[in-house]
Structure formats: C-alpha cells, structure tokens
C-alpha cells in the first residue's frame, strides 16, 4: 500500500478453506478439502480509469500494484471517476462460525449427506437418479485501501443441496432442495424430511399435466415470491444499470410509482445471520437495510462508491465480488418483500380466485430488466377458491411495469428463504444472496405453455 504511486489503491487478499462432498445416485462422487488463495488490486488516478490486477501468486503483490497502476494510466478519461465518501474503518469482523467446519472430519460430512441422499433414493423405485452435494467454506478476507481502511473479515458458508430425478418411461421430472447458510456445521443437521419431500414431489409430478399457457391470477409461495422480487426489481435497483444512462435514470426516477400501496421492498445486507449478510462490502463500506419500494413508490437503490458519487447519493454497502478473481460490482444481499398485515394468510389470497395458478418453489429466474422469467418448481391450479390439481412446467413471464403493479394482496406470513446456488452477474457466479417474502398475489400474470 505504501509503495503505490496511484491516487487511490485498494488491496484484497483472500484465503479460503473449503471442503466438498457429492453423491450421484448411490455413488460418492467426491470428498475433498481445498485451499484457495489469491489477491486483488485496484487503483485509480485522476483523469484515468481503473487499473485492476488479480493473481494467485501472493509474493507478486508489490509487482501487481505497479502493474495495476500502469493499467490505470493507460486508460484516459475525460470525465473523472469519483468515489463517494465513506468513513475508513479499521476493524476485525468475525462472523459466528457456528461449529467450525474446518474441525469436522470429512467422513462426518459424508455421513450427513449420505443420509439426505438416502432419504431421496428411498422414496420410490421411480427415483432413478439423485445429485446431492455438501459444500462448506471459511474465508478470510483482508481489505485495505489508501484512505486508511483496514478490515479483516472471517466469513463462513455452508450449502447442502439435492436434486431427485423421477422417471417413468419417457417422462422425467425433478425435485430440488437447496439450503445455503452463512453458518457452520451445527446448522446443517436434521434435514432428512425436506429431502424426502422433494423426491416425493418428483414422483408426483410424473402424473401431473403441463400447465396450459395463458394469463392467470397467480399466487406465489414465499420462495418464488422471493425469487420474483430479486429478478423483477432487485436487478433494476442496482445503480450500475442507471448511473451512466440518462434514459434509464429517467425510467427509474426516485418517487415513481411501480406498485400498489401494499408493496414494500428492500435489500438488507446487515440482517442478522443470513447468507447474503456481511458486516462490510468489498469496498469496505458497512452494509445496511436499504428501502427500495415504500407503499408502491421507488425510494432507493443499491450502490457502490462509484455509482453513489455519480448519482449524488450515499453508498449502501452493495459493492461485492465473488472472490479475489473479480472486481466488486453492485450486487444484492438479502432482498425482500415486506410482510402485509399480520394475520392475513394464504386463504385470504385464494378465496376469490375462480381459475388461477398457485406457483411454488423456485428452479430459478433471469432478467433482461424490463422482462424477466421466474421458474417455479411445481404448481397447482386454483379452482373456485380452492387449491386443485398439481401441474408442472410452470414458468412465469414477468414485465417490470405490469407485473409489479398487479400485485394486489400480500400476506403476513414472511419467511427468509436461504437457498444455495446464488446470483450471477457480469461473469460473477454464484454470489451468496438470500430472498425473503410472504405469499404474494398477482392479479394477472403470463404463464408459458400449450395454448
């Protein structure tokens, strides 16, 4: 840091201890322990652009600081890059390891996963294949910048997930369970029932019809409602999408109405104990709860120091990198739809729907900003105010301006859904994030399928 000749310099050094166990069918695929380490340097000079270097060979750190400075000086900019002020923090931030995974024998991890995998395989002869995986890590991150910040963070993570494949003749269906926590060994015990349930669902789906395509009233369960807010609105709230685009800024003007008064949403990187939670982001900014939509109106967005400076707003602690191999970019943390009135439940949402779809679980979602998809794991038809038959291949087509505004009821049954996997953006995948939501009703949404 002291050797750097650049106007602004930041250095991240990471050391990650991890172990992984995987089963495929009855067979163990791998059981390994790995150690990964490397560094990241980013520098900025007045009138010049970012110079970036990432590397695994840590003894080359001083050379890499020089290289990054050369790269920065090669990028001429007419309009300078500014960084919003953030008080430089010196701190040790060690998250609770909750049973340090580094001290647990690999054989014990294999045993736990074997039980979850076995629970899926035992459901039926129709379960022809499974994929089960356990992965844990403890990451040590040192961060320093030339403004005086010096942070040491200890970040644990553990993910168990399973896919059960059911097959009868040519019909193949899957059930998916995934649990991702910023915790340790103590938190991944006792999930047999959850894995059994998804395998049973894969079997049940073998007899289920495909949903017919068309526009329906739709109720999203907590898990899919979480994926929905992440795809529908979270990505639009990332200020790197708007900060250099005047048309996008106009479209996303603070104060614009996006939904009815029932809709409140935000992103909270400081929520206790969640997978997307960190005390500081990868620019050293403390995380916080950032309201994005209040009573249907756009009230905030997610920032890095650069996007905040450009828009004259405050950094929100959302500059994140998946590892030393990447620069920090604006990302979500724990994104949520706030609960509606306490006591309002699923039954209040379904009561007056004559024909609709109850979309459950999430295989994933993707956004192209205005339009986005969110893929349910399974669904049920709603007929005359009641949950009716199971249906499959339920994929919803969303539109930012239409779908959000058609949310007309939000239940009070909020849960955080801490799944494994993660979010992908700009080649950085998977970033640990969490979504939280209650049951949500959309007056009308498009579902793909035969028409």
């Amino acid at each position, binding site marked *: 840091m002291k050797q750097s000749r650049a106007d602004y310099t930041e250095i991240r050094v990471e050391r990650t201890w991890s172990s992984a166990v995987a089963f495929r069918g009855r067979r163990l695929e791998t059981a390994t322990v790995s*150690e990964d380490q490397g560094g990241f340097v980013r520098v900025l000079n007045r009138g010049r652009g970012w*110079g970036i270097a990432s590397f695994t060979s840590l003894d080359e750190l001083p050379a890499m600081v020089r290289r*990054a400075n050369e790269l920065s000086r090669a990028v001429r900019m007419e309009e300078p890059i500014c960084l919003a002020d953030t008080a430089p923090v010196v701190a040790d931030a060690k998250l609770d390891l909750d049973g340090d995974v580094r001290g647990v024998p690999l054989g014990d991890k*294999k045993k736990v996963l074997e039980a979850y995998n076995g629970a899926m395989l035992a459901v039926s002869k129709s379960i022809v294949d499974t994929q089960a995986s356990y992965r844990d890590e403890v990451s040590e991150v040192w961060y320093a910048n030339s403004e005086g910040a010096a942070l040491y963070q200890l970040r644990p993570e553990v993910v168990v997930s399973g896919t059960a494949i059911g097959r009868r003749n040519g019909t*193949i269906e899957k059930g998916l369970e995934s649990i991702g926590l910023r915790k340790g060994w103590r938190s991944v015990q006792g999930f047999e029932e959850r894995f059994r349930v998804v395998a049973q669902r894969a079997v049940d789906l073998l007899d289920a019809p495909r949903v017919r395509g068309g526009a329906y009233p739709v109720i999203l369960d907590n898990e899919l409602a979480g994926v929905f807010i992440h795809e529908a609105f979270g990505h639009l709230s990332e200020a790197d999408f708007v900060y250099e685009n005047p048309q996008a800024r106009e479209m996303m003007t603070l104060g614009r109405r996006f939904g009815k008064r029932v809709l409140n949403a935000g992103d909270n990187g400081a929520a206790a104990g969640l997978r997307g939670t960190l005390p500081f982001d990868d620019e050293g900014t403390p995380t916080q709860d950032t309201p994005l939509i209040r009573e249907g109106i756009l009230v905030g967005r997610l920032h890095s120091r650069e996007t905040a400076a450009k828009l004259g707003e405050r950094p929100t602690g959302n500059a994140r990198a998946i590892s030393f191999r990447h620069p920090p970019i604006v990302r979500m943390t724990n994104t949520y739809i706030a609960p509606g009135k306490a006591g309002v439940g699923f039954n209040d949402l379904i009561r007056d729907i004559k024909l609709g779809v109850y979309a459950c679980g999430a295989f994933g979602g993707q956004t192209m900003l205005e339009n986005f998809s969110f893929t349910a794991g399974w669904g049920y038809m709603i007929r005359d105010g009641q949950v009716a038959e199971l249906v499959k291949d339920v994929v919803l087509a969303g539109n930012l301006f239409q779908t959000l505004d058609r949310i007309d009821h939000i239940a009070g049954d909020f849960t955080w859904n801490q799944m494994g996997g993660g979010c992908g953006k700009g080649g950085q995948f998977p970033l640990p994030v969490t979504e939280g939501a209650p049951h949500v009703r959309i007056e009308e949404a498009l579902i793909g*399928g035969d*028409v």
Partner: protein
Amino acid sequence: MIDRLLETARRKVDGADALWRREEQTAVAFESGRLKAAGISEEAGLNLRVLSQGRMGVAGTTAAKPDPEALLERARASAELGETVDLAFPKAAAASLPPIPTYFDRTANASLDDLIALGRMVVERLARPDCQINVSVEREVDATAVGNTAGARGEYRGTGIAVTADVTRIAGDDVLMVYDHYVGADMPSDGDLEALIRSIETRLSAALTIVTPPDGSLPVVFTPAGLAAVVLPLEQALSGKTVLQGSSPLADKVGAVMFDERLSIIDDPLTPGRPASRPVDDECVPSRATGLVERGAVGRFVYDLETAARAKTQSTGNGRRGIFGKPHIGYTNVLFRIGDGVHGAHVGAQHAAPPSMLGGGLIADLDDGLIVDDLIGVGQGNVISGAFSHPVGLAYRVQRGEVTGRVKDAAVAGNAYDLLKRIGGVGTDGRWLGSRWSPSLLLEGVSVARR
C-alpha cells in the same frame, strides 16, 4: 511441476494423473461508450487425482509454490472416503498427438493498446444517440500440462480472444437489449468484426417497431442464439453420465432414429482456430471427433475416464477438470451438420456465410410465426425432459414472409425431442456462438402464449 508430483505419487499410491494450468487474461472494458477499466488476471494451479487401494481421491491447489507431499496427502485422504473404480490411465501415445493450432502469436502478442483500439473501433461503429454501448475485449494466453503415472504426457499452449458488445436502448418504458460476440483463438479479421457489427445492427433496427405477438401453435425460426433452449436437453441427454445414471431419455436409443434424418451433431476438439480445441483432453486422452447424432440417429455418448470405466466403454476424450474437484465430462466444440454438409463447410470462420438477413433465409414462406433470438431463463427448468417454456428476450414477428417488428410479453414452449423430429428448414446463416456452431432452424408447432 507435473513430473515431480507424479514421481512423488508413484512411490505412495497405485496410480495418479495430474493437470497443471496457467492462465493470463488481459481485459479492457468500455462502459457507455467510454473506456473505463483495464485489468489483468494471472492464475496458476495444480490438480491431482490418485488411485489408492482401488479408491479414487482428488486435491487441488493454487499455492504459488505447491508442496507435492501435502497435495498428495490431501488426495489420499480424499481417496480414503472415495468409491472404488477400475480406472486405467491412458498409456503414452504411440503416435504424436494430433497437430492442432491452439496458439496464435498475433493474439498472444497483441498489446494493451491493440486491445483498446479494437474495442474502440467496435464502440465507434455501433454508436447511436439513443443507445448505451458496452464493449469488452478479453484476451487469454494459457499453458496446460497433463500427465499420468502410466507414462502419458500432453502439453500445449493456447490463446483466446473475446470481443463482446451489448447495446441497450431505453425509450420511455421500453428496454431493448441486443448482444453479440466474437470468440476465437486468433484475432478477429476485418470480416469477423464487420459481421459482429452488422449482426447487432440488423437485430437492433428490426426491433425498433413493436408489434403484437401471435399466439397458438406456430412455426418458429430459432436463430443460432435462440437455439440454446432446444440444444441444452440434447447436450445433457448425450452425456455418458446421465446415460450411466439412467436419467437420459436417449440411453437405450443408440442407432435409433430420434431426430430429422438431415440432422447430425458432432463434438470436435480438432476444429482449427477455436478456443475449446485441444490436442489432448484433461486426462491425457488424445483428442478426436465424436458423432453424437448421425443422420437423425443417436450416435455415441461422450465420456471421461471414470464414467467410461463404470459404463465399460472408452473415454471419448471429453475429460475436463478445473483446479479443484475431480475431472468431469465436458463438450469441446459442438457442431450442427445439416443436410448434405454444405453448411458445415467453412466452420473455421466465425460466420460461414456472409451475415445475412434476420431469420437465415427461412421466413419467405411463413404466413405467421416468430423468429426467436433470445429466451429468458434457459437452463432453469426440467431441462433433461426436453420440455422448455420461456419468456422471449428478443423475438420478432413474421407475417406474410416479412419481419414486421419485435414482440414482447410472449412466452414460447415446446419439447426439444418432438420439435427436432422434423426440421422445417435450415438457415444459410450458420455461425459460431461460443463453442457451438449452428445455422438457424425452422421448427414447427411451437406453442406461443401471450398476455
């Protein structure tokens, strides 16, 4: 490094193979038309697999000076929990490895200024007052060494360059995103860059008018990019792994005609000029082409060493491994060869045919249908079943043989196995997209739903 590691392993375990890889990337990024950042990334790592008392274990490290003894100990600990496998490492090849150019001096020697000039040219050509243009140029130079205790060795250097351009146009509440790239081992020719620019211009100008989507069961032209949802199920089903696990719908169909008899698909690691090409795979198996689908009939599945050993067959040279984890099956270059082979004639170039009209010459006879260029959420459903259902990301309506405009808020659904039984037409626009070469295909009876 490999020799020393394998020598250490030979004394302590029954057998071993290893991969060492070093990658150096140089990247420049233009954001909203302005050069913003330049970066380098350097990474080297070592992956070791051992057979110890008939059991398999793996370990990897990115340490700057890896300790062979420590790595071997971790691999042995992994093997203690591992499954037994009757794995035979390939012996030293009798003949030399197939000569395939993977390293291009022009690419390796391109200076930072050359890469900046390349990106700037694309930015300037695509500049439009109402559009935001992001361009990145990424160059990679890598070196790979593989070896095993049976005496086989393989070494090669490679280069790769990717020029990606995305254009975002926001008009009121309409968001239009058009994306394309050049990817090759050699620097793009003027013709390649011209093709990239025209591809974006063609799709952008046809998208400026928004029209109502049709609905019903319709003929749809899937462009090479739009084809991903149809190809993905086949790639999963043709993997020896899903066949072994019993989850591939094509498992017992070798030799059976399952697709249009004009359709052949090969995996070819020996295609000149492609970044995925290589003389030897990551497990020392010499590269050769594999016929996945031959004139509509299921041909060979792709295998790595372990899956082949369990399935009692030979590896097809599709072993791929990272620094951490064990080798797995991966495709190299996947090429669609359709009809008499004319369209597969010039596959070394990015675009085989000159950049043509949207739809690859397939729309003249369409009375009402779609051209699908991008779907949202591909890969997130129950992929292996062949069923897909996705909102359109970028699609155009065709009426009476002409493109009438872009459609929004529509979803397409179908089953890849059913749709590929009869190909209604093959485009003249065959091209590389990442590591896949294909023309546009006209498929009939695709379900289109709209709001």
